[in-house]
């Protein structure tokens, strides 16, 4: 059913290293326009490294990354943001000595439409009323869940074409996890494509269109999310069934 939509992001044979250690051994994935795609896999499988390869913080040694038809494999991180990829990174990486509002403003750093930025700020505060209550608080002093909301909100402030979320549910109370996933679906409905890295494979496969299973730096499985959720091997390894 997604055949007619265009490919937004395409990775082909991406190999990325940390020093001499090879973290990705030829990863090929696609994100099509309007999709939610999830990467699942164990710790150290290369999920976060895939995101760091895309966002320009850790350039691959081999392979290619094409976004909106342009090769971005060796683009600098800041110009990739300008092209429309924003990220809520692993460990949140907020600016701890800035307030919530300032953090959100930083998310819109490369935008120049003041009215649009204000509109998006209101949108983030509507999505996360908790953040609105704490807008003058220093980000470093908030709880983990609040920081996670702020990190997602900050990524949304870039008004990206592709939103990459790294472990958005990590360390959150179940009630917040549900809220975060509702938000992901909502943001996607408003037209943003999403690449979602998650430990919580059950939730991720529930909201995603398609999924990839990463194992030690390679794509072990790729399928529709529903099919992956039914896959016996996936159920055993990642959904905790026996």
């Amino acid at each position, binding site marked *: 059913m997604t055949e007619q939509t265009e490919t937004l992001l395409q990775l082909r044979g991406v190999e990325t290293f940390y020093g001499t250690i090879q973290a990705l051994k030829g990863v090929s994935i696609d994100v099509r326009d309007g999709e939610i795609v999830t990467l699942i896999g164990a710790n150290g499988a290369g999920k976060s490294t895939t995101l760091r390869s895309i966002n320009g913080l850790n350039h691959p040694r081999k392979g290619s990354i094409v976004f909106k038809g342009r090769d971005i494999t060796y683009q600098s991180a*800041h110009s990739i943001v300008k092209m429309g990829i924003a990220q809520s990174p692993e460990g949140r*990486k*907020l600016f*701890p000595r800035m307030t919530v509002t300032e953090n959100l*403003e930083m998310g819109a750093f490369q935008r120049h439409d003041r009215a649009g930025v204000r509109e998006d700020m209101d949108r983030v505060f509507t999505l996360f009323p908790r953040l609105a209550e704490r807008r003058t608080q220093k980000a470093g002093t908030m709880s983990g869940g609040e920081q996670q909301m702020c990190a997602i909100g900050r990524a949304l402030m870039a008004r990206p074409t592709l939103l990459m979320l790294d472990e958005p549910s990590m360390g959150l109370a179940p009630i917040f996890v549900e809220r975060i996933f509702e938000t992901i679906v909502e943001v996607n409905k408003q037209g943003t494509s999403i690449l979602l890295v998650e430990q919580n494979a059950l939730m991720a496969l529930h909201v995603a269109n398609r999924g990839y299973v990463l194992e030690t730096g390679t794509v072990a499985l790729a399928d529709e999310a529903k099919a992956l959720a039914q896959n016996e091997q996936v159920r055993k390894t990642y959904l905790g069934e026996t």
Partner: protein
Amino acid sequence: MPFFATLLVGILIAWLVVNFVQGPAYFTTIAFIGLTNGAVYALVALGYTLVYGILELINFAHGDVFMLGGMFSATMVVSVFHLAPHASIGALVAAIVGSLFVAMAACGLINVAVERIAYRPLRGAPRLAPLITAIGMSFILENIAIGWKGPGYTAVPSVLPTSAVFSVSGITYTWEKLIVVLITVPVLLVLVWLVQKTRQGKAMRATAQDRDAAAMMGIDVNRTISFTFLIAGGLAGAGGLVYALYFGQIRYDTGFQLGLIAFTAAVFGGIGNLPGAVLGALVIGFIQAFNEGLTWHAPGSDWTESIVFSILILVLVFRPEGLLGERTPEGG
């Protein structure tokens, strides 16, 4: 241990009070000297703290950039503006503003070049590597200064008027000291505005707090770091001008000595913290002036550096983050 610290502070205050009572007018005059010295140190200390804040690197070449600023200023004032003592106010202002602009621009660009050549290629290397290249750059800049001006002192004629701004009941405040403050304060205000209000300032603060996250916001991290070195160098250039005009002589190693004091001021106030650097610089300026100027049981100028560094050790033992530094969970 708090008892020990309280005792020390108590003795210090008692000593200051006795000196004040013995000669209030003289004490105030000495305090004005401290304020002036502190203003010069502040301009240099801010450069250390700005660069440390963004790269966590002690830029050992910074003091030498300041020294070159002093030499640029000396050259401008003497050879370009032909300023002589007792010049007209118009000529004095024109020469100071012109020299300030040249010294700040030149030092800013030198500092950017230092980062580009000696620090950026080592961005991913272990911490020790850029520290060593910083020391290397320091020697290179000093040798450039020797090649340019020779190993002896370059004298700057005392062009600043030494007449009194006011003289009330024995307390005299002279124009040369006021001019130092008049140059320093606007430069500091512009810096605060730059860091707090401008887009580049926001990029600097973001990069200082988390470099990867800043890149993810679309901030050009390399450009932001270059900009920080430009500002730090500009401040050093302003400091060089003020130093050359106020103290009247400068040598290739002036930057090493003053740089050490300014760096101490930055650590004292809390490295990475801008108001802290100014506060630390003023405190050291006062310590120096009181120690060298007061008459009742003052240790004298031979002891200044020992005292400054003893206080630094005490501060670091009891408050490692400095006077205004934040106790952050990540230990910065």
